[in-house]
């Protein structure tokens, strides 16, 4: 349940219903006034939820290995994460052997890095590259989700934690697509790779470069 709080919050913030919520929080985070800011903020919340649920899944995986068997998470009918995460035939990534929880942690950490970087410097030249990487990894991840859904079908049980991570991943992928479409449009709100934002230009110009020496006569 804990994991759904940031995911639902992020989803609301990304949606048209999130405008009022964003404006309320704009005094603390001014970027939430814009659609881009709300989308990025919402995605961060969703990714954080995805990261925590992946970490929880890895914890359950390790606990199952530690204890041998048993119920480590609530089971109710078809929802039984012990049967899925504790299933040695399906609980690791094929060929690589990493537990799926670890794969999820790595994926969401990478997504978070991509989006935090974009949030901090939305006008930089590499923003589009970050959005493309996020988009393509999102599509790759959806392929993995289909594989895991097939695994759940084979096992005959559904894992609630895995499903939460899947939902988080799908929302994240949708967010990257949305940001990509915003990037070249007016919705982005700041200069793109052409660096039209004067503040950013000004900041850059002050960061370094050649400073001509001042002669004594000029000083006087």
């Amino acid at each position, binding site marked *: 349940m804990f994991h759904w709080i940031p995911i639902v919050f992020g989803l609301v913030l990304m949606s048209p219903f999130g405008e009022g919520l964003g404006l309320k929080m704009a005094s603390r985070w001014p970027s939430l006034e814009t659609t881009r800011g709300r989308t990025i903020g919402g995605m961060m919340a969703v990714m954080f939820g995805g990261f925590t649920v992946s970490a929880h899944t890895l914890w359950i995986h*390790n606990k199952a290995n530690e204890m041998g*068997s048993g119920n480590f998470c609530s089971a109710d009918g078809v929802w039984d994460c012990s049967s899925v995460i504790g299933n040695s035939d399906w609980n690791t990534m094929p060929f690589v052997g990493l537990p799926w929880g670890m794969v999820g942690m790595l994926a969401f950490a990478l997504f978070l890095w991509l989006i935090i*970087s974009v949030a901090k*410097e939305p006008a930089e030249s590499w923003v589009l590259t970050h959005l493309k990487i996020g988009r393509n990894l999102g599509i790759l991840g959806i392929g993995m989700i289909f594989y895991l859904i097939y695994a759940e079908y084979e096992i005959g049980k559904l894992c609630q934690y895995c499903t939460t991570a899947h939902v988080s991943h799908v929302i994240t992928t949708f967010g990257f697509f949305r940001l990509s479409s915003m990037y070249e449009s007016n919705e982005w709100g700041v200069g793109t790779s052409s660096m039209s934002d004067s503040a950013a230009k000004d900041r850059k110009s002050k960061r370094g470069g050649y400073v001509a020496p001042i002669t004594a006569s000029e000083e006087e």
Partner: protein
Amino acid sequence: MQRRNISNEAGGRADGLLMVSVLFITAFTYIALTTSPVYTGIGVDDRAPVLDGQVWDGNSWSDFSLYDNVDSMWVEGEGGTYYMIEFMDTNCGHCQSAARDEIPPMQTKWLGADATRSMPTNVSVEFLAVSISLWDEDTAGKEYGRDQIEEFRATHNHEFMYMDDQDESNKANWGDFGTPTYFLVAPNGIIKYVNLDAPGGYTVWDAMEDIIPRGE
């Protein structure tokens, strides 16, 4: 001298990397400190893989699961049941000689309330023979089936359970090895001995003497 300005675009990405690294390391540290995963395998100190099947106790066939009889919270010094598991084939010569010569005195020594080996009152030992099939059913002179298992057990006056794994349903978890192969599994499901890893001459019976505690 004019210096190259190469780090203008690194700020946001470096900050992001730092934040994500802190988050990742925190989560990973928590998991590392609160769990202690044990590898599941067939080596010493591994957790024994799942072992499920139908067993013959001399009267009837019934379902058996090793993990229904394991206490994962068991720690050394507590009472519990040790399992000596023998993977065997009713057609294997070494298994037949072991069943005839080695096992009868050992079951007198270790099994039941009248076991001759002293043990604490809350410690017990069970033997479990897992009957697998090394050959095809069509191989000349090799016969398989539950009748063979029942007959094998009765012929050698064994008093312990025989599991029918001739369809090799546990092979995927336990692997492919010859027979007889012996495992000693502690009450928490951890393998304490397997003859595949043991030095020459050190048998499962020696390991049981060394590992299973003695009574007063």
